[in-house]
C-alpha cells in the first residue's frame, strides 16, 4: 500500500476532489514552504546582503542557508558553486549566452559544435540552437532516440567528436519519463573529448531521484524550485567552479559589485558575481523549505511511492483500448511522467472532459518538446499525467474512469453496422 502524503498539501484540503496529475508542469506546495515564506514577509522582511540591522542579518542568514541545502541536495562540493536563478530556463540561458567566454572553440576555424538530444525540453534546446546562429562555422546536432524511447547511445558516439564543445541533455524527459543513464553517457562523452562541457537539465529529476553531481561528473546542472515543491520564479545553476569563473554575468547591477569607480568595476566573487539585483528572497527561502520537505520525506520513500504508482498507472493504462503510451515500458528506467494518446480522442478533448467530469488536472499538448513530438513520436500532441507525492492509486482509478467517460462522450455512437 502506498503512503498517504496528501495532507502535506493545503491545495488537497482546499479542494478534496481535485486529482492533480500535473506535477511535471509545476508541483503542489506543502505547508512548510508557505509558512517559511510568510514568516519572511511577516516577521523579518528586509533586503539581503546589505542591511546591518538584525532583521537584515536574519534574512541574509536564512537566505544563504538555502545555498547549503541546494549543495547537499545535488552533492556539490562547494556552496559558492550554487547560483540562484529564476529557474531552469534562466540557468541554461546563462550558460548558453556565455559560450564565448566558456570555451576557446569559438575562435577555432571549425567553430563550436553543440549537441542536444531529441528529448530535450525547449529550454535546453532552443538556447543552444539560437547561440549557434552567431557562429557561421558552428554546428548543432541532435541525438536520436531508440525505439524504446531511451537515448540512442550508438548515435551519441557517432555524433560526438573530440571537437564537440557542449553536450546538453535532460536527466529525465518531461514527456517520456525516461531516466537517462547520465553517468554512463558522460563517461562515453569524456572518452571522446575530455574537455567537453556537459550541461544537465535536472528540472524533472531534482524532486524525484537523488542527484550527485560529483559522481555524474557533469559540468553544469540546473533545476527549478517550482518543480520541487517550492515557489515559482526560483531555481539554481550549479557549475564546476573552473567553469563558473568563466561565465559572463547575464545581468549587471547591484549586489554583484566589489568596487565601482568612474573608470572601472570590480565584481564580487562567486556566487554574487552572477546574481545581480535584489534576488527573489522569499522564493529562495521557500525553495529551501521545499528541500527540507523532500529531505524529511526522504528519497527512498519518494522513489518507492512514485515507482509503485507509476507501475500501477502503466498497468491500468495498458488495459485501456486504443491507448498508446510514449515512453519506456520498464518502470526501473522511468519516472511517473506518462504521455499517451487514445485513438480518435484528441488530447485537448481528453483534458477538457477529465477536468469537467472528474476534476482531474492533466496536461495536453506538446509539453514544450515539439521536436520530440513531431520529428520522433510522429504525433502533434499527447495527454500527459505526472505523479507527485500527494497522488494515490485512487487518483489513477479516477483517471481510468475518466478516460472511459471521455470515450463515451467523444466517440461516435455505433449505429448498428460500422461503415
Amino acid at each position, binding site marked *: 500500500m502506498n503512503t498517504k502524503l496528501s495532507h502535506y498539501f493545503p491545495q488537497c484540503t482546499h479542494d478534496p476532489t481535485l486529482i492533480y496529475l500535473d506535477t511535471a508542469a509545476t508541483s503542489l506546495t506543502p505547508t512548510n514552504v508557505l509558512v517559511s515564506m510568510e514568516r519572511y514577509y511577516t516577521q523579518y522582511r528586509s533586503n539581503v546582503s546589505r542591511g546591518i540591522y538584525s532583521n537584515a542579518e536574519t534574512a541574509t542568514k536564512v537566505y544563504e542557508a538555502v545555498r547549503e541545502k541546494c549543495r547537499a541536495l545535488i552533492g556539490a562540493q562547494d556552496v559558492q558553486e550554487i547560483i540562484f536563478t529564476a529557474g531552469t530556463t534562466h540557468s541554461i540561458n546563462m550558460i548558453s549566452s556565455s559560450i564565448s567566454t566558456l570555451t576557446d572553440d569559438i575562435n577555432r576555424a571549425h567553430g563550436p559544435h553543440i549537441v542536444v538530444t531529441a528529448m530535450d525540453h525547449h529550454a535546453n534546446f532552443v538556447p543552444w540552437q539560437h547561440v549557434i546562429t552567431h557562429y557561421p562555422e558552428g554546428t548543432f546536432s541532435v541525438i536520436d532516440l531508440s525505439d524504446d524511447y531511451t537515448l540512442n547511445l550508438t548515435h551519441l558516439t557517432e555524433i560526438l567528436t573530440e571537437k564537440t564543445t557542449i553536450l546538453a541533455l535532460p536527466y529525465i524527459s518531461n514527456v517520456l519519463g525516461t531516466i537517462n543513464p547520465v553517468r554512463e553517457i558522460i563517461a562515453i562523452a569524456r572518452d571522446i573529448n575530455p574537455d567537453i562541457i556537459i550541461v544537465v537539465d535536472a528540472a524533472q529529476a531534482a524532486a524525484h531521484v537523488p542527484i550527485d553531481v560529483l559522481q555524474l561528473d557533469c559540468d553544469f546542472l540546473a533545476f527549478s524550485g517550482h518543480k520541487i515543491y517550492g515557489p515559482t520564479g526560483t531555481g539554481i545553476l550549479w557549475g564546476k567552479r573552473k567553469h563558473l569563473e568563466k561565465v559572463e554575468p547575464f545581468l549587471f547591477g547591484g549586489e554583484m559589485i566589489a568596487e565601482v569607480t568612474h573608470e572601472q568595476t570590480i565584481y564580487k566573487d562567486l556566487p554574487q558575481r552572477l546574481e545581480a539585483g535584489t534576488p527573489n528572497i522569499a522564493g529562495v527561502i521557500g525553495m529551501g523549505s521545499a528541500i527540507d520537505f523532500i529531505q524529511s520525506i526522504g528519497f527512498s520513500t519518494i522513489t518507492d511511492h512514485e515507482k509503485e504508482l507509476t507501475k500501477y498507472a502503466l498497468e491500468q493504462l495498458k488495459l485501456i483500448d486504443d491507448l498508446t503510451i510514449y515512453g519506456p515500458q520498464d518502470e526501473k528506467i522511468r519516472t511517473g511522467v506518462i504521455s499517451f494518446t487514445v485513438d480518435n480522442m*484528441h*488530447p*485537448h*478533448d481528453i483534458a*477538457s*472532459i477529465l477536468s*469537467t467530469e472528474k476534476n482531474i488536472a492533466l496536461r*495536453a*499538448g*506538446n509539453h514544450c518538446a*515539439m521536436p520530440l*513530438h*513531431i520529428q520522433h513520436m510522429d*504525433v*502533434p*500532441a499527447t495527454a500527459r499525467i505526472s505523479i507527485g507525492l500527494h497522488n494515490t492509486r485512487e487518483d489513477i482509478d479516477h483517471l481510468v474512469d475518466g478516460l472511459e467517460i471521455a470515450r463515451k*462522450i*467523444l466517440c*461516435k455512437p455505433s449505429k448498428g453496422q460500422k461503415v
Partner: protein
Amino acid sequence: MNIYQEEILAHYHEPSNNGELKDPTHTHCGFNPTCGDKICIDLIIDHDTITDISFHGQGCAISQAAASMLTEHVKGKPANTLKNLTKDDILEILGVELSMNRMKCGLLALETAHRAYYKNIDESKS
C-alpha cells in the same frame, strides 16, 4: 459549462464540407502550435459569392466542429459574409462558452478562412 454539446459532437462526428476542393480560388492552412491542430480551408469564390468551401486537417472536437459550422454558415453566401464574420459570431454559432485556453481551438477555422480570403485577394491584385 459542458462544451461537448450534442450539436458540436454531431459536427465533429459527421462534419459538413470536409475534404479538399478541386481548383479552389483561395486556400490556406492554419496551425495551432500548442496543440498541434491544423486546419486547411479551400474556397471557390465566383463573382463575390462563395460557391464552395471545404476544410480538412486534424484537431480537437471544438476546432473541427467550428470549422464544419463555419463552412455551413458561409457556403453559397456573398464573400462579405465571410469577410465580416467575427469571433463573437463564431462563438454564437458554436453555442458554448469557451475557456481562455480553448478559445484558440474555436477560432482557428475563422482565422484560417480569413487568411485564405485575404491571401488570394492580394495575390490577384498584383
